[in-house]
């Protein structure tokens, strides 16, 4: 079936993959420090509204992305404050952040835009074909004729991998997620590392949010994120907290997503397959794969556990 191997399908796959992997990398950094951020969907939503509005008013997607990143960071730091300083239950706080992000984003949008006849639009990012690489047939056309944020996502996969596994700071971060007391006893400031992870991880989540209006839709709608945050959370587990494997997972899911998108657009299939069924596909796929992969996945040992130096055990 040529439909499955279409170049434009693969191009769309990478386009869909980028927000997933960017969010997933942010979450990986946060979780590696020992904080489980289940508020991710809400934080990504906030990123998409701030990213959209700032791009709309400033006319610059770069400014939009920067502000989205900062807003993501701020909301994640709220989670950090509750889970690190106040040692609250991370699941409860995370769900609170989720609801907060989901609720506050349309509010911000309506406050800024008001009630209007025509929905505000921003131009979506253009593809930039990379010289030489972009002209390699097939591979080049798929990987190197994309928008700038997709290239950034490639770079971030490499950068986060390097950071986690090849730098002293990465070693310390992982130590905080595995055994904070052991990290503490060698002089690592566990709270600072965790705050840092949330601040930086939050930047990623914000950018992932901004990507959706800036690349995919050109406008903001209330449920623009549509579960991608949760999907990123699952991809962290799928990748077993290793960025490269999450990248593979993101490609797989994005492929199924892109596939349903393509098929839905073809009238000859629409008659046979109900569109709702196709829309469901990526999520069913996610569930099936995760059930298989998550078996035996080992999370950072101290994930969700607040650290209290004076706690007696």
């Amino acid at each position: 079936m040529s439909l499955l191997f279409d170049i434009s399908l693969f191009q769309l796959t990478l386009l869909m993959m980028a927000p997933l992997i960017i969010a997933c990398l942010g979450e990986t950094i946060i979780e590696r420090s020992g904080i489980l951020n289940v508020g991710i969907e809400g934080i990504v939503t906030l990123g998409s509204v701030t990213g959209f509005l700032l791009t709309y008013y400033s006319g610059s997607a770069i400014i939009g992305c920067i502000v989205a990143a900062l807003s993501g960071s701020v909301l994640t730091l709220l989670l950090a404050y509750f889970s690190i300083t106040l040692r609250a239950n991370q699941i409860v706080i995370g769900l609170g952040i989720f609801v907060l992000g989901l609720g506050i984003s349309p509010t911000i949008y309506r406050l800024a835009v008001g009630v209007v006849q025509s929905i505000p639009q921003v131009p979506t990012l253009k593809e930039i074909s990379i010289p030489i690489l972009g002209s390699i047939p097939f591979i080049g056309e798929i990987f190197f004729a994309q928008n700038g944020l997709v290239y950034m996502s490639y770079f971030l996969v490499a950068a986060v991998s390097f950071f986690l596994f090849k730098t002293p700071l990465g070693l310390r971060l992982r130590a905080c997620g595995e055994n904070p007391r052991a990290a503490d006893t060698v002089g690592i400031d566990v709270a600072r590392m965790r705050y840092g992870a949330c601040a930086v991880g939050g930047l990623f989540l914000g950018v992932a949010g901004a990507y959706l209006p800036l690349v995919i839709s050109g406008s903001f709608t209330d449920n623009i994120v549509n579960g991608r945050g949760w999907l990123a959370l699952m991809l962290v587990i799928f990748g077993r907290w290793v960025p490269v494997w999450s990248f593979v997972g993101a490609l797989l899911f994005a492929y199924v997503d892109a596939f349903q998108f393509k098929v839905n657009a073809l009238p000859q299939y629409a008659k046979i397959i109900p569109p709702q069924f196709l829309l469901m596909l990526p999520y069913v796929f996610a569930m099936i794969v995760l059930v298989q992969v998550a078996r035996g996945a080992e999370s950072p040992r101290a994930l969700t556990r607040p650290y209290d130096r004076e706690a007696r055990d």
Partner: protein
Amino acid sequence: MTETAAARVEMHDVSKSFGQVRALDAVDFEAAKGEIHALLGENGAGKTTLMNILSGLYRMDAGRIAVDGREVDIGSPQDAIAVGVGMVHQHVELIGNFTALENILLGREGARWKLDVEARRSSVEELAANYGLSIPLDEQVKTLPAGIQQKVEILKALYHGADILILDEPTTMLTPHEVDGLFSILKSFAKGGLTVVFITHKIQEVLDNCDRITVFRGGRKIDTIPREEATREILVRMMMGERGMPPEGERPTGPSAAREGHPALSVRGVRTSAKRGVPLRDVAFDVPRGLIVGMAGISGNGQKELAEALAGLIEVEEGEVHIDGEDVSSLSVAGRIARGMSLLPQDRIEEGILPGLSLAENFVLGLHPHIFRRRGIFEREAVHEMGRNAIAEFNILARNEHVPAAHLSGGNIQKTIVARSVMLAHTTGGKVMIANNPTRGLDVMAASFVHGRLRELRAKGAGVLLISEDLDELCLMSDRIVVIYAGEILGAFDGPKYDIYRIGALMAGQKQGAGS
């Protein structure tokens, strides 16, 4: 008192409270350069709390600390490292998924941007060689045995520049051979000018290995005496105070005391699945009636799995378990209890009690099918009465039978569980008792209480299987000792006298050439 050298560390008037509990009350402590200094005391005496303050984990409420005569403010482990304090914790604080080398380098990686583990390897190896510590640097720490993990943590402390080395109960997880090895290393450290402080509750270790001894009791320092002035009697008196040592109790007599008839418990070729922890491999032994059979082994060699397989909590894939001649392999937990088996679980808080329920309600767990006359209806008054009686009979420190079990101290929780098992044994005929580390973490008095009850069961003709990591306890209690290693029984020794080095060699998995 001998002031041999200038004090390397001094602590004055140190106090520390946890909520309402005063853990340390104006304590003084000092240790000199080049000595091995023992901190001796019962569980809860405040030894570990004091050293956690010195290593920066706890902040003291009041007091002063000086290193080399200069007053220092230790507010975090970082500050402690800066003045040369390194601590090896009782449950080693290492990261299981990291290699030994990564664990050692953590926090002092020697590079800012690029982690280069290899570049630091030679300096770590050199340090290890200097101090006589041989460690497989590239193994993941979680795969290493406890004795090696401890060495990793010692080397880590040295790599971070510690010359005041604190070890918290370093021998609990080690075989007798490893204990000897550890102390010979520590002695060479002290000769080389390090200050070694080791925390323990074992008097013999103190007498064998240290230069000075500081004794703690109930959050206060009793005294510091040099080794030459110390005898077992003096130390016991300092440690226990007015209470004195509990009576030793009846010594085991050996297997000849076994009573006629079917063994109370017979384990025949039991195998379990690797999915349920350490797989048991053809485990076979008997616990005759009227004997205490001790099971020696280092933690994590299948003891927990065995206890659970016997109790019916995990499935036996092959082999049989007999109680008093009857095959109970296919019976449920309740079925086995009804036939006279009772279990003292290892983790008393997690598995032993329902923390939120009252003491009385905790007593009737397991007993409930047997004591209620009106089946299916909770006889509140009967339960309360039983609770009151048990509190009195077993001398449990609790305001009344209504307090939630979680509010009790560890020793009283264990008394509660023991009381329940003993009552259960009375009710069901009490043929077999499986006690898994029943005295771990208890003070001497509570431990003696538990021992007394186990001896009572033995005297009544029950078979007791006593699983313990404390070889001294096993030698004191058992008529026979079997050794478990990696889910396999490696040998059996008949009491009442035991050669702990031969047992220790088997505990370390050496099937042949046991002993030295």
